[in-house]
């Protein structure tokens, strides 16, 4: 087991290191550097200004040199300053990360908690009217564009009924927990509705497969209560592939949800990463993207470890 763990840890570290270069190179290969873009916004800039600013920001150096310089500092824990925000990249990231973890964490949990009973019930009654209705609703939830859903929710609950605020964050100073939660309702609802369909379909498919296995027939033959067979025997096995899906979704805890954040004016990681990439803010974009990569890799590693612990065949491979 320890050999397996060390091997996977090494692989994960190498993957993160490789991704740091890939991300750096991809941002660097995008057309137009930030100073060129600045020029289109400020007609007062002269060619001298452009040359000077490029030198200040190190944009006059080849990309490999820039990457190696960044890597050297990153290895000492110094991730540099955000060009866009003129603050340490880590300091810019901190509050956004907390916002996104809260929004995505609540949404993912809500989606999983809602999806689980619906999917299990649908699988237990596969082919019935209820199952078909759940399927149809899932497809609707998956198909509806997030921005449109957000707009509908804002119009219904904020404009028409006036029950909930349209913004994701309160504007008052020290708004209190209740007010903060009230502002989170609509963005969380948007993300939950958008995610729940997918979760239901994953769990339902796994449950249908599990319910057709021999051990389920055996459990029934032993005279176990059908509810016990469903929730203990079938669900336990069906949850294994779902854990993989959840592990993959973990990246979203830090990568955020660009559209939802934009619609609700919610300062999260999705918008930050987008702005950092589009603004060629290397330090910020890299730190954010590496964080997403590292968390996704870590969650997958955890899933692998859990699998290995549960299934000895995986360890032996």
């Amino acid at each position, binding site marked *: 087991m320890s050999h397996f763990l060390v091997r996977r840890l090494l692989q994960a570290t190498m993957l993160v290191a490789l991704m740091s270069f890939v991300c750096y190179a991809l941002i660097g290969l995008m057309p*137009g550097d930030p100073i060129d873009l600045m020029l289109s916004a*400020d007609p007062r800039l002269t*060619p001298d200004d*452009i040359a000077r600013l490029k030198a200040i920001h190190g944009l006059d150096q080849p990309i490999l040199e820039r990457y190696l310089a960044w890597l050297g500092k990153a290895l000492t824990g110094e991730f540099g300053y955000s060009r866009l925000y003129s603050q340490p990249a880590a300091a*810019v990231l901190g509050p956004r990360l907390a916002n996104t973890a809260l929004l995505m964490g609540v949404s993912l949990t809500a989606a999983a908690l809602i999806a689980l009973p619906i999917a299990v019930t649908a699988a237990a009654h596969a082919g019935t009217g209820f199952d078909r209705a759940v399927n149809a609703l899932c497809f609707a939830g998956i198909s509806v564009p997030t921005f449109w859903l957000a707009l509908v929710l*804002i119009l219904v609950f904020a404009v028409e009924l006036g029950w909930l*605020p*349209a913004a994701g964050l309160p504007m008052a100073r020290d708004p209190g927990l209740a007010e903060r939660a009230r502002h989170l309702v609509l963005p969380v609802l948007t993300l939950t509705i958008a995610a729940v369909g997918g979760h239901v379909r994953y769990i339902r498919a796994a449950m249908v497969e599990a319910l057709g296995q021999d051990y389920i027939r055996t459990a029934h033959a032993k005279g176990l209560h059908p509810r016990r067979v469903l929730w203990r025997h079938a669900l336990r096995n069906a949850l294994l592939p779902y854990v993989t899906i959840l592990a993959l979704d973990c990246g979203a805890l830090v990568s955020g949800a660009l559209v939802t954040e934009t619609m609700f004016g919610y*300062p999260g990681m999705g918008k930050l990463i987008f702005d950092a990439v589009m603004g060629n803010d290397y330090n910020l974009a890299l730190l954010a993207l590496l964080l997403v990569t590292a968390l996704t890799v870590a969650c997958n590693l955890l899933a692998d470890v859990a699998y290995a612990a549960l299934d000895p065949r995986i360890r032996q491979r």
Partner: protein
Amino acid sequence: MYRMLSAALLALFAAVAPATASPPAKDELVIGITQFPATLHPNIESMLAKSYVLGMTRRPFTTYDKDWKLVCLLCVELPTMENGLAKAVDLPGGKRGVEVTYTIQPGAKWGDGVPVTTKDVVFTWEVGRHPMSGVAAAEFYRRVTRIAVKDERTFTLHVDKLSFEFASIGGFQLLPEHLERPAFSDPTKYRNRTLFDTDPTNPGLHFGPYRIVEVQAGSHIALERNPTWYGPKPAFRRIVVRAIENTAALEANLLSGAVDYVAGELGLSLDQALAFEARHRDRYDVVYKPGLVYEHIDLNLDNPILADRRVREALLLAIDREKLTGSLFGGRQPVARGAIHPLDWIHATDLPAHAFDPKRAAELLDAAGWSRRGGGPRQNAAGERLVLELMTTAGNRTRELVQQVLQSQWRQVGIEVRLRNEPPRVFFGETVTKRRFTAMAMFAWLSAPEAVPRTTLHSESIPRPDNNFSGQNYTGYANPEMDALIEKIEVELDREKRRRLWHTQQHLYARDLPVLPLYFRADPFVMPKWLRGIEPTGHQYPTTLWIENWRFAAP
């Protein structure tokens, strides 16, 4: 498709939304804009959202008012040659410079009570001219060779170039020496240490009617009255500037009451505002202010087809710009006859209109050797078809609509136009700046009142590999007559003589047509009926520079 869905939804809810009763008097105003400022340092980076917010917290020495007249804000009197506050001087090497004297408004104090003085002036100049400080547009700071301090409030700038704009120092934004000096101890680190970004709610950074009290990055900035402000007390106790990038969500926030007013500088698109006005004119006033954003088509004059002036004129005559702005923009965006806005005092009123005249366009094309056989595209004697490519920014719905209308109108006279669009980043980052568009590129220029077009029309400003693609003369236009006019205009101090030079310049532009003028964009200001005192300027200086005039008034 998505926009249509959003519009339909908003219209549906508008139809059933209850009418709101008269609002109670408000002492807080929530302004919605579509961008969040990345930095709050007045001299690092250039961003409209930042100028908008800082318009409430500080004042430039000079600005252009709503009538596009240069006025003093932080200074007491505008320097002129006549009042003796400006003096032309001869410099070594035959150059001419200018000495301009300003006095800071008495009573101007930073938010922590420290007076705004000439120490701040000298410090700001030191920061601005240091090559490593990160100040973006440093040309002004380099041109100021010395600052002579007379006393705590009066100083003289010694500028090494005499130009008619000598009195305009709107970009010279003061920094508080008593707070920022330590951050500037290592100039290379200044841009990362400045209090404007590390401690933006420090009261000592602001001397305008408001000071920043809260910054929630990416969401909103809250401001409250500045007790040390020397001008009239502003009406609103608290202002919140809220950033909502999606304009459909911004509109929904406005309707829900989460936002009171949508700023024209960074707000709804024109088509959205027109639809909004039609549905909500009982609760909101929408003011359209045509501004200095000049939509046009740059022609690549290296293209042999476009090198022929007759073809360029035919392209312009073949499009019905009046009808285009009428049908797409409700006539709110005036047709441009050139790059100079009609509100600018230098605008020539007698420019050729180049009104829609497909017959004349056809004659010009015939004369240029592009004849038409049948209903297809025209061909020259060598059998080559008259095919041009029109590029613009992908995803800009308005431009894409305009593009389709133009393509259809040009087809009527036998010009085949192929559309090829790119994301703004590629379009502006590579294609336009490196002159990689083969024929036509549609975009906009943002200028200032009486802006000299040196970077866009002077032959020295043509981007080339040997000048590292600097300059913005993307058409490749080179005319010694235009170069000479630009150089003369820059140094002509006599207003009447300068007006004549400007008129000549505009006629030359209309004759040579290196660019096809389309229209001037208008900003829609969506104001609740109870909000008064906002006066859209139409130029780059934001309305917030006069925020002390904004007030609540029961409708």
